[in-house]
């Protein structure tokens, strides 16, 4: 055994002690944050001025919409028929230790037509990328962040491909297991690729908008602090607002938005907030696809839900997303059923990955090309077989 659990034991004990201390501190700080949230409605004018200053400083916070910021909205009643679609992707990244350089993105999608009594439709679409154009950006091999971003864009693309036809038959909601505001941690040389990815993503969102299909990105166990940044901003004097101060969340450090919305009861959603992340303001909002966020207590589990502005601003769309999520989280408590199933359809297991490698090797060998895993990889596989 490589891991000495005996040595780890005192460290685990200390970790639990630290977590317990943090929970006690949070029990005091969370109500303070909630009090600031409630006070926002009373200071709209002052807040607007602060928000205008902060947004000029590339502030990645959240702006209240017409809703009272501390509002809690119960779930609207479920009306059938209702179709819920979900897409999820998984990938095999390029690996020089494998028999050949390639990557693969597999899309899993499920269409659940509630109220029809029919079996849901399952879709699984693998796509292989292997040409030099696929694999390289100039001299650089595509980064894992880039491939992950490509997968995220394809997820919404899959929804845009399938949802319009559904929307002609029944009210339809489309879900992804991810934020709608792409998080692209790309290198400088990938700037053009970033723009192209976002443009494609926005075109998919527009297709859904034109088809009248509200779309939502779901994040379980969210760690985001956009609303906390808003609360921090509200506590600053306008003259004291600087880019440096806006980088932190001040007295609310290490809390999350989910802590703030702990007051939501099962089934309730929070008010909607518009995200002010620079990418949102630069790329999404000018195209009418600005991303907004609300929090939802789904059977006791707090979810972050990202929706485009055209969903946030259209109460029937927002209600449809809300009611669909509550219905979905009734079957698999705390997380939408269709997303669990889409993941199941998308995921590429280690055995399947090994199968692809074998098939690659065989195809290449038939053309007289030697292909095998690196000696390092073979050694690791051997260990896996014997351990």
């Amino acid at each position, binding site marked *: 055994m490589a891991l000495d659990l005996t040595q780890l034991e005192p460290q685990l004990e200390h970790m639990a002690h630290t977590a317990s201390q943090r929970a006690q501190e949070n029990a005091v700080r969370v109500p303070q944050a909630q009090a600031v949230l409630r006070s926002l409605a009373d200071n709209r004018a002052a807040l607007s001025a602060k928000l205008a200053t902060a947004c000029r400083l590339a502030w990645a916070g959240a702006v209240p919409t017409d809703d009272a910021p501390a509002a809690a909205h119960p779930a609207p009643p479920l009306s059938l028929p209702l179709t819920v679609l979900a897409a999820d992707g998984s990938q095999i990244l390029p690996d020089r230790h494998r028999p050949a350089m390639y990557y693969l993105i597999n899309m899993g999608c*499920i269409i*659940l*037509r*509630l*109220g*029809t*009594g*029919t*079996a*849901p439709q*399952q879709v699984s679409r693998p796509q292989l990328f292997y040409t030099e154009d696929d694999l390289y950006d100039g001299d650089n091999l595509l980064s894992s962040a880039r491939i992950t971003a490509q997968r995220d864009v394809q997820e919404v693309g899959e929804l845009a491909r399938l949802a319009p036809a559904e929307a002609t038959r029944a009210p339809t909601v489309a879900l992804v297991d991810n934020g709608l505001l792409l998080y692209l941690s790309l290198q400088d040389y990938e700037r053009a690729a970033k723009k192209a990815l976002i443009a494609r993503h926005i075109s998919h969102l527009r297709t859904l908008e034109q088809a009248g299909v509200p779309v939502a990105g779901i994040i379980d166990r969210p760690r985001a602090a956009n609303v906390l940044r808003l609360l921090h901003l509200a506590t600053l004097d306008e003259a004291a607002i600087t880019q440096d101060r806006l980088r932190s969340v001040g007295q609310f450090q290490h809390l999350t938005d989910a802590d703030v919305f702990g007051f939501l009861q099962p089934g309730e959603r929070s008010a909607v907030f518009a995200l002010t992340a620079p990418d949102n303001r630069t790329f999404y909002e000018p195209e009418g696809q600005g991303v907004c966020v609300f929090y939802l207590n789904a059977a006791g589990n707090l979810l972050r839900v990202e929706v485009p502005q055209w969903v946030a601003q259209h109460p029937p769309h927002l209600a449809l997303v809300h009611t669909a999520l509550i219905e979905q989280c*009734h*079957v*698999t*408590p705390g997380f939408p*059923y269709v997303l*669990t*199933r889409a993941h*199941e359809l998308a995921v590429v297991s280690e*055995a399947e990955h*090994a199968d692809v490698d074998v098939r690659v090797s065989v195809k290449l060998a038939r053309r007289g090309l030697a292909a095998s895993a690196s000696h390092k990889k073979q050694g690791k596989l051997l260990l896996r*077989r014997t351990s």
Partner: protein
Amino acid sequence: MTFATAPVVGRLIRSSNRDFVFASQVPEPDMPLFGAWVKAPAQRQQTEVFGLVYNIAFTEDELTRQIAATPNLPPEYILDGRNRQIPIEVSVLAVGYRREGRLYQALPPQPPVTLDQITACLPDEIVAFTERLDYLRLVAEARETPVDELMSASVRYAAAARPPDQRPAFIRQAGLTLARLLARDLTRLESALNQINTPL
């Protein structure tokens, strides 16, 4: 014909030279059946182990458990649950092997190796293997399996793999073999003979 479509039915998860277990995620209609003939590579592909499916078990699946416990479950979820590729564990009794083109009705020299692919036997392979019926003795001695049902089911599959005009003679020959193996237990023999005449 044991499997109408994809002949790859799963991947080996544990084995001995007497029996082996594979995991399968094929959808329900293509799921391996009790008594069906399957094969697994062994000895670095030099040998193919032939076996009979004798147990099929649904493995633990949290999602199914969660769905089953949901009150007022809409029918769409039940239908989806049945469509899912739920992992199953399939136990197989080794009854022979093929090496260098020759078929042997005996325990294989080595078991198949973990993670190897298990495939359904093709009708021609079943016919060739069951030209002799010595494998029924191995089944009769496999007390961990439902012996009588397994012998009968394997004979029925072997008969079904043959052209219709050859089936009566094959079943007669299998009946004689069973009579020898079960000569001391006429009740079991009668039951086995009745079963091999039951259509698939």
